[in-house]
């Protein structure tokens, strides 16, 4: 393999690993963020409804 071929082979391997790591971290961490976003929006919506009454 030439230098470029070796570089791109390693880059491809690295990209798969990084992609997978980001996926796992985001899916686990994102679940908590979804909960807190929904709570905050629900609170705003209820406040908005109370204000309009």
């Amino acid at each position, binding site marked *: *393999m*030439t230098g*470029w*071929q070796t570089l*791109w*082979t390693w*880059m*491809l391997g*690295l*990209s*798969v690993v*990084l*992609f*997978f*790591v*980001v*996926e796992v*971290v*985001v*899916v*686990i*961490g*994102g679940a*908590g*963020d*979804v909960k*807190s*976003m*929904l709570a*905050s*929006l*629900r609170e*705003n*919506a209820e*406040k*908005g*409804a109370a204000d309009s009454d």
Partner: protein
Amino acid sequence: MNFIWIDWLTVIAFLVLTTGVALATRRLISDYDSFLLAGRTLKLYLAMATMGATELGLVTLMYFSQQGYSSGFSAFSIGLIALVGFMFVGRTGFIIKGLRDLEVHTIAEFFGLRYNRSTQVIAAIITFAAGLMNMGLFLVLGAKFLLYMVGLPPETLPYLMVGLLLLVLAYTVVGGMVSVVLTDYVQFLILFSSVVFTTYFAITHVGYDSVIETVQREYGDGGFDPFLSEDLGWLFIIWLLIGIPFSGMWPPALSRALSTVDSETSKKLYSFVGLSFLGRALMPMMWGICALTYFASDNSVALPLLDGVADTAAAMPVYLSQILPAGVRGLMVAAALAAMMSTFDSYLLCWSSILVNDIVLPLRPDMKDQEKIKLTRIAVVGCGLFVLSWGYLYSPPETFFRFMAITGTMYSASVLLTTAAGLYWKKANTVGTLASLIVAGTLPLTTIFLGDSDILPLEYRWMVEDKVVGITTFVSSFVVMIVASLLTQKSHPPKAIPRAKEAA
């Protein structure tokens, strides 16, 4: 038809899930901020999920795979440059930190604060025009993917485009950013897993050694060395390198940075999600390279033709439809739909919000929240109809990625370059900014509209090549900004940037 019952079941289950999420979030929309920026409540991981899903669209898979098919491994340089760009923005907070601290809704709003309303409107028009043209190919590429993966007859392409558009419009109009963010989270999971699985199947089917041999045979050393590549070359690499400071700042991605809880979260978002941008480019490119290997060695399946020549954009979906096992094929189509919907809905919402916030609102500042939401919804439908027509009528002169790059330059070299000047250079004034916006907003149109026409004599065609125009646009925009600002300091003294509370 390539699909069997398990493939259809997977796709239908996915569609029911995402549509249900969109409908369920409708009652959470209480004001314009909650419709457009999810109430600025995005924390880091959710912001990463939504940015990752938005920036990995079906169109991304299609144009990167076509680039891999056309340039071989040399195309990987594009992914590497994107990674460097994201790391730079994440580390320095270049532009994103300044905008987030000012609490603006859109980038053009900054022009209203730093310069005046006319500049805001012109910046918004350029952003809107570049964005809509860029998005113009989303539907046709998405429909092509589905057409070849499912194995439908080519004459169904227009119907598929209409069907996809209706699907996306339905839940973007109903739920706004909240439904976009929630569906992005689900789509992120499906999409990222499928991309990794598909890469495994794509490589193992043809074998990595065979891929290397085919690229060497078809493209020679240029298939690996981007500077020697006939398709790319050193001018192309320079063009991409100039754009590094503006990586990931296309308005839909930027809207994620503006939706985060603070500017430090925006920086972390770019640093971390940027890591996935290497794979976002390299893996679909690898599918395209594997498709090249497949079609070069197996003549039993023909590559579809477009106007009498091989349709390189069709290579990847045709290849995957032949090699993926039943079930995985359905998962891939569900992921592709996820990719298309998560990108398309965000882009529709983004361009519509620019139209409302930065073009209509400066002229009618007394609009109420409910009126703004209604107008944004109408704009979403209008943009969708434009994309449908543009995708059907326009064919780019180069690969699809190259078309995306030149429309990206139209925005980066005008709006982003002048935003950077406005944030970091005290002498930037309205005249310099307007001159720079007009120069950089119009030069790329020469490639878009003259690149494939016979108007120019053959010996002058190089002047409208995308890489030549791309570099010229950046350089001339920069020079015009500096010179015009310095020459008009007395007649048009620069205005200071207001603090966040004053801006609000």
